[in-house]
């Protein structure tokens, strides 16, 4: 909640004096605000990099399927699917693997099919 109220203030400094009034009173006015912010800007907290903050160098992740031109994401190929399954058996999110949205969609359905036929575990390591 605190992060959500901070983010619009940074992006729109002109609103700051107006919003300082109701803020100590309670959380309710601040609770309403993200709704307006979401409709107008569509910019969530943590979207734009903060100025003056520490800069991390992050290697740009690219989609494995786009670069290697693999279009056929098949449930039978459990070794390949295993790269995108965490130790716990969970499907690794896109933000960690860098897979693009269309391929992640196919990937996740393939993993679920592979789970169904006991090629991949639902939970835990494949024993």
């Amino acid at each position, binding site marked *: 909640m605190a992060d959500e109220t901070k983010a619009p203030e940074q992006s729109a400094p002109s609103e700051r004096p107006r919003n300082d009034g109701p803020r100590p009173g309670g959380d309710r006015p601040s609770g309403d605000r993200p709704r307006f912010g979401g409709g107008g800007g569509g910019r969530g907290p943590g979207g734009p990099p903060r100025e003056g903050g520490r800069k991390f160098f992050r290697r740009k992740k690219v989609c494995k399927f786009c670069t290697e*031109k693999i279009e056929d994401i098949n449930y039978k190929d459990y070794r390949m699917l295993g790269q995108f399954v965490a130790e716990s058996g969970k499907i690794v999110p896109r933000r960690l693997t860098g897979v693009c949205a269309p391929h992640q969609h196919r990937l996740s359905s393939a993993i679920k099919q592979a789970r169904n036929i006991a090629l991949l575990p639902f939970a835990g390591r494949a024993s």
Partner: protein
Amino acid sequence: MNRTYELMFIVRPDMTEEDLDKLLSMLQSIVPASGGSIVKVDKMGKRRLAYTVKRFHEGIYVLMVIEGGGAVIHEVERRLRVTEQVIKFLTVRTDEEQKRLDKIKALRDSRKKISAQPAAPAPVAAAAEAPAVPEAPATA
């Protein structure tokens, strides 16, 4: 109504080869009877299961590719459910996906041909330009 399905099923690991062949021939007779055709039967062999299924830790995987309508699959799945040796099965429709893959493949092939044609004259043009570039600093 001609669809392609991939049917993968697991049978108990203690099943003998003859029993498995008997089961497969039974399925191979059912499919044409209900109006389909078998494209491929592949015994993928014994594999450790990712989790226990009906108290089994391993199973023999079989993959069948069947062509036909939904009625064929309905009948085959019913038979598999009844058969006790089969511990798990999964049917996936593959024709739509295959169509998509063929389309992408065709698109890539056509692009390759276009890119292959300008690729041949390109080194010649680069060679022609190459001597021109060192000349410019020399005169200046």
